[in-house]
């Protein structure tokens, strides 16, 4: 059972998993010690330079009961996804290893940066965010034919929305669960509306449709949702 976390450099891949471990979230807790991935004083993750693999023991509280699951977590270096493809060419073997890992995994969690137009580069190319997502969808199309769960989250939600309000609205509780389809529809319509057309196009052609999230290490309730979603499937394998 493996879950691969992918996304551009510094999008927050390593920090996300560390935050599930320390301080931890209410319904998902990574029990495996992850201290080697971060500076315990500052809590900052070191940049991932090569593919890291760790078998995580994760405790989840599902409506049907509490469960411990083992998840093989694969952290991929952000550089691998740089659009220049330089990394992919110079480290061909490592790149192919990552592709294989992704294609054989149970679940893929893609983290996207917030959509903001701040840099000059972004001002010149207002569609950059959507184009970036489009190239990820192409990557899924080519590599994820048998991946059952593809989750896409805009990370660092604290930079673009009222995380308290959203967390209040979409609170997962063990007994009540969460209406996932409503959450998914809301997130897609609210935060992914710019990419509506390409998402529809992808869903039309694939039987496993995409699931959407917003996450931030600053809010444990939002942060744990993609992991609860995955766990509800992985716990029954």
């Amino acid at each position: 059972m493996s879950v691969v976390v992918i996304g551009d450099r510094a999008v927050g891949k390593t920090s996300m998993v560390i935050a599930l471990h320390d301080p931890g979230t209410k319904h998902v807790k990574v029990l495996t010690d992850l201290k080697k991935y971060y500076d315990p004083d500052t809590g900052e993750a070191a940049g991932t330079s090569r593919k890291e693999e760790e078998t995580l023991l994760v405790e989840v509280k599902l409506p049907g009961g509490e469960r411990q699951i083992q998840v093989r977590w694969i952290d991929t270096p952000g550089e691998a996804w740089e659009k220049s493809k330089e990394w992919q060419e110079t480290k061909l073997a490592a790149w192919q290893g990552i592709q294989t890992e992704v294609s054989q995994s149970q679940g893929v969690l893609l983290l996207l940066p917030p959509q903001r137009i701040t840099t000059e580069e972004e001002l010149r190319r207002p569609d950059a965010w959507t184009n970036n997502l489009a190239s990820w969808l192409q990557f899924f199309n080519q590599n994820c034919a048998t991946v059952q769960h593809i989750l896409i989250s805009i990370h660092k939600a604290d930079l673009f929305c009222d995380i308290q309000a959203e967390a209040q609205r979409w609170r997962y509780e063990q007994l009540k669960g969460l209406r996932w389809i409503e959450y998914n529809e809301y997130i897609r319509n609210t935060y992914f509306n710019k990419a509506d057309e390409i998402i529809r196009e992808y869903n039309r052609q694939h039987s496993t449709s995409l699931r959407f999230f917003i996450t931030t290490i600053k809010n444990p309730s939002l942060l744990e949702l993609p992991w609860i979603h995955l766990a509800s499937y992985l716990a029954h394998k």
Partner: protein
Amino acid sequence: MTRQTPKSAEIRIIGPRQSGKTTYLATLAYFPHKKQMKQLYAGMEITPVGEDAERLGRMAEDIIMQGNKLAGTFKTNIDYLPFYFFRIKIPSIKGMPPIEIELNTRDYPGKIFEEIPLPHKQSEVEPFIDDLFTANAWMVMLTDWEPGRDKTLYKPAFKKLCEEIFNKEKINPEIKNLRIAVVMSKCERGELWPCRLDPEEDLFRVRLPETYDFLKTKLSPQRLKFFACSSFGVLSDRIGDFDPRPNRYIPDDGSISEFNAFLRIPEQWQPYGLIAPIYWLSTGRTLHDHRL
């Protein structure tokens, strides 16, 4: 009431991808309307037995009830396919004797059904066909009625299966007792719901004419029967009072509705027609309550 020894039934569930096979079994394991059912028929009980069948019930709770959908069953080696055991107690219904069924069942990946008629896939399909003949009953779940699929998938698949039946029963006469239930799933859909009362006439003969005619000429009524079922059912507060709005949600996100439907109101989850095919497959008798 006379107690009878439990009847054992060995059923294989097959059908194309996304036809609702796994959802059907998870619904059976969880039996969301058990309370209402017990009011209707005291003594009605469905018990999943063993780890695998119990897991199906938890999947209903953790996934279907939560507004998610089950993941597709991926094609694997037949040896990895679990057996699901159920103990089913059905009290006397409309003059029929009470019965206890020990059900042993297996849920095939849809891909295999789609590969049955393909000559170049025969080596992959063969172990599954062999396994089919270790059972005394098959449940074939279909969900769409595109003329193309009627002609190019369902009929050829049944053609191949019937060839196998006729070859094998020459050697093993027991196969003459094999029963096949052909089930139209997801029948809460508006255009199907009124047809559920006579599925043979109003669903299969009308919507899948090629497949229907083929099956009727090849198999006697003792071996072949048509059913309609819906794991999600329609909205309603009280049993028997069917508010005909489907209890399902189909998101408008570009996906094909067949691949992507969700239970809408879990509190009103009242599946339709779950038991009738199992009852007929294991006894050869028909249940005269179309809700079951």
